[in-house]
């Protein structure tokens, strides 16, 4: 069994869907998106190994320098609600201390959640890292030297 060392942690954050209701703990990553204008904004994304491509809410089209959310390459993706049309672009992100240019999909039917505006998916991004996940203790570790 190889010995794995991790330098960073993905934190879990608490979300109460209703006041005094049960808590859900979400692994969230504060990702920096470099906009078309060169400025930087931070976006909370859900760490989602089930997402093949990093996905943002459709409203972010203007940050990518687009006139509308649906002018890119149309791609069909499977979601909990069935197969959806999404549109794919390329963007530059800063994730876990690395700058990565990767595919980004815009989706106008992502469920609204105050703690995240998209999903951190596998394509290109995950190639740069190794991950270790402990379900019971809500611990998710990251190494930039996989």
């Amino acid at each position, binding site marked *: 069994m190889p010995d794995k060392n991790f330098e960073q942690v993905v934190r879990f954050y608490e*979300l109460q869907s209703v006041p005094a209701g049960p808590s859900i703990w*979400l692994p969230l990553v*504060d990702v920096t998106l470099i906009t078309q204008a060169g400025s930087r*904004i931070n*976006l*909370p994304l859900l760490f989602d190994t089930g997402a093949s491509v990093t996905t943002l809410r459709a409203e972010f089209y203007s940050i990518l320098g687009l006139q509308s959310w649906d002018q890119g390459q149309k791609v069909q993706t499977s979601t909990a609600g069935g197969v959806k049309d999404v549109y794919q672009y390329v963007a530059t992100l800063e994730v876990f201390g690395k700058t990565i240019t990767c595919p980004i999909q815009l989706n106008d039917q992502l469920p609204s959640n*105050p703690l995240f505006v998209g999903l951190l998916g596998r394509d290109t991004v995950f190639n740069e890292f190794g991950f270790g996940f402990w379900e019971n203790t809500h611990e998710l570790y990251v190494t930039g030297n996989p």
Partner: protein
Amino acid sequence: MKYSIRSHQDIGEVRANLKAMLTSSKSPEETLEMLDKIGLEPFVTEQGGLLVKIWTIAAEDFVPREKTAIIRAKRATPGQSDDLDWLSKNLAVIRGQYAGEWIALYEGTVIDHAPALPELLDRISKFDRPLITFIPAEPVTWTFTYAR
């Protein structure tokens, strides 16, 4: 550049600089802003006194080097705020105030809000790396697999 306290000698240097700062002609507001910038975490007491937090080394090699990053990531770093953590802890209030709007957070404060994202982004362009999120008006419907 923020102070990085490495030894007792450094603390002496910080104190000397602090004394010079307090005897200058700067206003209290200017002095507090300067102390914020150099990371000394000033605090004004009810009696009008000024407290500053000066960090010092209590133990060298306290944590094995390979565990340092993990432990640091789990704990808040002094002088730095985790906007996502702040949002999670204050979500009930935020949802009550900004339901149906985009908000921008910066150092634990909602710096602006707007119903449309482009409008918000136009107004906060002077901030470096604000955290942007949308506060839904409707109840959160959970469709993902992570849960307690």
